[in-house]
């Protein structure tokens, strides 16, 4: 993991992974993380998103936020494809521990084991956690 960012013209493309571990509402992490991801798309880097722990709830279908008086930003995950961000990884153990499966999610993802996720993380140049 490194935090030196090289966006110079013709600079190398780095592998960025944004790790989402928190439930979508109650804290601002998920929404802020998503905004950073959308902005990062402008820099033509190799961007992926990982969803672990309560972070998997960010992708669950049918979110209704009227009761907590927050904007339901879950439809924005479906816009990621248009931003050419198509690598969404979800940890299988986190889904299973919460009684969820891939069918409960609102976007196409790649489900992988914790071990595979670890491998994926070790291949990154930059890992940013939210």
């Amino acid at each position, binding site marked *: 993991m490194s935090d030196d960012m090289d966006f110079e013209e013709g600079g190398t493309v780095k592998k960025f992974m944004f790790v989402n571990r928190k439930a979508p509402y109650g804290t601002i992490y998920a929404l802020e993380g998503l*905004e950073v991801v*959308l902005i990062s*798309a402008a820099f033509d880097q190799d961007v992926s998103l990982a969803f672990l722990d309560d972070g998997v709830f960010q992708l669950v279908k049918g979110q209704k936020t009227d009761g907590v008086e927050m904007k339901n*930003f879950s*439809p924005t995950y*479906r*816009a990621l494809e*248009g931003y050419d961000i198509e690598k969404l990884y979800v940890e299988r153990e986190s889904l299973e521990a919460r009684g969820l499966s891939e069918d409960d999610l609102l976007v196409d993802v790649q489900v992988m084991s914790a071990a595979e996720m670890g491998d994926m993380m070790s291949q990154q140049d930059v890992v940013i956690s939210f």
Partner: protein
Amino acid sequence: MALEVNGTTIETDEEGFLVNLSDWNPDVAAELAKGENVEMTDQHWEVINFLREYYDEYQIAPAVRVLTKAIGKKLGPDKGNSKYLYDLFPYGPGKQACKIAGLPKPTGCI
């Protein structure tokens, strides 16, 4: 800041974007366009309506690059390019068109 439309006061932020997105209607859009010195034509409305549909579906205002690509897909390559969009909205299709469409400033718009 505020805007006066048909006797109703509409609240805007320091850059002229609507504070309450639900305040938007075509009359408000026309007034916002006037403030931007944009003469609204059918071509302008096409982009504005596209932006509103995009926001409705995804809950964000798209980045210019994404908007350009999506417009090209929906309305054809002669419209899905920067020149066409900048001719319509000289101060940037992202910022200016989003403002007239009553959307927030695009995420990542500098």
